[in-house]
């Protein structure tokens, strides 16, 4: 089954390019560490999900590019075409001239309705190219105007028009120290709307990706390109094919469906985070060897202690002892905060995957009481190594990972809202203070729900 990607705004399009590039490069990687037949099955599966075929044999990404001003999309299209390895469809791009001015209301209330038909038509064309549609992957940022506002509008439309298909939104959270002044407004408006219309929100924070670049990849002068490549690597390690059944060579057909089924048991809890291990520069990789035991031990502790990467993990954090009240109910500012999970998915790729012991993730102490660990925890595997890593593990988690960042954003937006600053910029385009209040209410509910796990 195929996934149709919708890339929105500058961020969405810049990332989208890196994602397809990473997927393509990995699927054509010569060091798959598995049999030729296996490799071919992997490639075919990856292709089915993300690329369609064109006459001259160059794979075409199953993607629609949308932006309200032309510079980024034309750059993205030409970068892909110049690579000679894959490209975007010639007519898969929709852009306008004026941009959204970092204004959620402009993206949602003006651009949305105005360009609804054109954008949905483009998506329809892409869907028709798929033999069978798994769902939509929407890449957008929350801080700006197009990704955030138009992204929310498009997701809503997808819900109406393709009610049987799944939608996962890949959302980028801006730097905490400020990239766009109204980023917190745009963020709460986006999140509250997506919470109603999307099936899952996969979140990446610029601050976290930046730290990974600095500490793990050892990049001195970090560019957005570097950041996007780390992100693309993480996404690739989740979305590349894995076996559908333990021990088989057949690849899973419905990645989105399986992911949702495993990770989103309740519509109140839709926020997912990714962690992966190992992540390092190529130079360091040459000197490193890993065992599954070591990797999984670190990954488990990253989950429990809410660590963003494999460096600086707090080993003091432990799951609560059974019988004692869970620590999760206390305030958000506590020190030894244990990260309570609702559901987790671990994806293992590479040598000797079947020997990896995942017992540590099946501990019921890690999870809320609603699901049995056997349902709360799932694992996907493949022998086929990912990118250049002989062994790699990724974790997609529905847990309290994003509780603190979400709470922070809501708090800052609330402070600004209380002073009424910038509101006139939104009300100019048909929004009202009521709309803001609705968003705050919904998100406070989400914060409370995650807090009380």
């Amino acid at each position, binding site marked *: 089954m195929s996934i149709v990607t919708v890339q929105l705004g*500058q961020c969405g399009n*810049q990332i989208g390019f890196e994602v397809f590039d990473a997927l393509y490069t990995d699927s054509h990687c010569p060091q798959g560490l598995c049999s030729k037949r296996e490799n071919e099955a992997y490639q075919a599966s990856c292709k089915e999900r993300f690329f369609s075929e064109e006459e001259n044999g160059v794979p075409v990404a199953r993607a629609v590019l949308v932006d309200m*001003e*032309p*510079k*980024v999309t034309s*750059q993205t299209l030409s970068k892909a075409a110049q690579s000679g390895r894959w490209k975007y469809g010639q007519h898969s791009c929709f852009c306008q*001239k*004026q*941009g*959204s*001015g*970092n*204004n959620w209301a402009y993206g949602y209330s003006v651009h949305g309705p105005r360009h609804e038909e054109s954008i949905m038509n483009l998506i329809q064309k892409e869907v028709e190219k798929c033999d069978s549609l798994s769902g939509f992957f929407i890449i957008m940022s929350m801080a700006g*105007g197009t990704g955030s506002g138009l992204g929310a509008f498009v997701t809503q439309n997808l819900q109406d028009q393709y009610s049987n298909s799944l939608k996962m939104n890949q959302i980028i959270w801006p*730097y*905490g*120290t*400020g*990239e*766009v*002044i*109204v980023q917190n407004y745009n963020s709460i408006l986006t999140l509250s709307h997506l919470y109603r219309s999307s099936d899952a929100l996969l979140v990446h924070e610029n601050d976290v990706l*930046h730290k990974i*670049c*600095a500490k793990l990849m050892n*990049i*001195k*002068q*970090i*560019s*957005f*390109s570097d*950041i996007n490549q780390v992100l693309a690597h993480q996404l690739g390690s989740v979305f590349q094919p894995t076996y559908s059944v333990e021990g088989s060579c057949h690849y899973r057909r419905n990645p989105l469906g399986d992911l949702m089924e495993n990770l989103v048991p309740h519509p109140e809890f839709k926020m997912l985070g990714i962690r992966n291990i190992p992540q390092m520069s190529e130079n360091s990789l040459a000197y490193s060897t890993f065992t599954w035991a070591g990797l999984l031990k670190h990954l488990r502790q990253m989950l429990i202690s809410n660590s963003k990467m494999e460096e600086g993990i707090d080993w003091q954090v432990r799951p609560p002892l059974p019988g004692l009240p869970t620590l999760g109910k206390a305030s958000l500012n506590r020190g030894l905060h244990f990260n309570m999970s609702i559901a987790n998915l671990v994806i293992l790729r590479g040598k000797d995957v079947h020997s990896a012991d995942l017992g540590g993730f099946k501990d019921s102490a890690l999870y809320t009481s609603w699901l049995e660990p056997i349902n709360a925890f799932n694992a996907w595997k493949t022998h086929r190594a990912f990118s250049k890593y002989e062994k790699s593990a990724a974790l997609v988690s529905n847990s309290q990972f994003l509780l603190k960042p979400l709470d922070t954003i*809501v*708090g*800052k937006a*609330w*402070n*600004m809202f*209380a*002073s*009424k*600053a*910038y509101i*006139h*910029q939104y009300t100019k385009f048909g929004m009202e203070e009521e709309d803001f209040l609705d968003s*705050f*209410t919904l998100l*406070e*509910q989400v914060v*409370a729900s995650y807090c*009380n796990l």
Partner: protein
Amino acid sequence: MTQSVVVQVGQCGNQIGCCFWDLALREHAAVNQKGIYDEAISSFFRNVDTRVVGDGGSISKGKICSLKARAVLIDMEEGVVNEILQGPLRDVFDSKQLITDISGSGNNWAVGYKVFGSLYQEQILEKLRKSAEHCDCLQCFFIIHSMGGGTGSGLGTFLLKLLEDEFPEVYRFVTSVYPSGEDDVITSPYNSILAMKELNEHADCVLPIDNQSLFDIISKIDLMVNSGKLGTTIKPKSLVTSSAGAVKKWHQRPFDAMNNIVANLLLNLTSSARFEGSLNMDLNEISMNLVPFPQLHYLVSSLTPLYTLADVNIPTRRLDQMFSDAFSKDHQLIRADPKHSLYLACALMVRGNVQVSDLRRNIERLKPSLQFVSWNQEGWKTSLCSVPPVGHSHSLLALANNTCVKPTFMELKERFMRLYKKKAHLHHYLQIEGMEESGFMEAVSSLSGLIEEYNQLDATKSMPVEDFPRLSIAV
């Protein structure tokens, strides 16, 4: 991509405008080596086939034939505009874009606004409509003028209301040169205050500039150029004051150097909209991010570096210095000290070989020494444009919505009151039809209102930042 139209009014406005077009051509020539008319150039220039008579000569793609500035030049005297039309830029403008008169406004806002306003309203509208028609998607009017005289001040601000009514969706960005302390026009406080009311009510964004600050900046550069310090040869084209072509001796035509600074301001402001980058910033984002309340739309600007030294390696230290300088009071284009006042919002527009990590590092480094208003503690808007200005490897434009503009306004008000109390020169204004004393009173009260808003914000400076109590949800 969108287009912008520059409306230059009065002597000051047209002289600055002329420098702007000169530098814009230079910048695009440096970037666009193949001579193809692309979207970046089209933001400020039309491509015209000059062989075609009349209006039908516009070419939208392909090779550059003849570039025409998207500009309207207005002056109530002929001297300055004539000089432009005889100078090296004569082919960039055509006579259809000009509105001139002979008698001038006599440094009288009322003559500029009331007399010439009504006399030339239709013509002005016609020229503006024409220039708008030539645009595929017009986003912004850039108005350049001075506040202290008669034409720029009076007719320049009359324009604003016209633009607001005729083109309500198009942004109005005004670059206003405020009179310095030792201004030689006696009535400049009257003209400025009367103009301020119009700016308050009809401009989207104002970039105040004052001549003294520009002069101080050139003096600083001059000191560096002539100091002959070892290892400090400066690349000639890199001076923020230099014109296209050879570096002129600035003290022969000091205004040229000063005007070039303002021209560079406008180029840098629009660079991220015209050229590509990893984090673009369009003109509509400036207003969105930097104007938290409609009245508070005055942005203090600073440009760094002022020059590039000739050595090739740029150590990080120098890059960081560029960021530090942007906040020093010596680099502001108006007499203001943003570091010791309160920030409502701040934009950092970076050009050239600078990456997001450099930007983040400097924000974190400088933030502790700056004071931001309680509801906007992380009030940063950032942009990264890949194309540096000519002669530089990187540059920074900082735009601050900061209470440090307040002293300028307060001094202006004081100078006004000193004249007004004695009714000095008032008759020149009141004898113009449509001008009454109430007009003066309204203007002062508009300014006082603005000053009061800044005062209230300043009062919050020393208060501890408290979070507002959040909505409580029944679980």
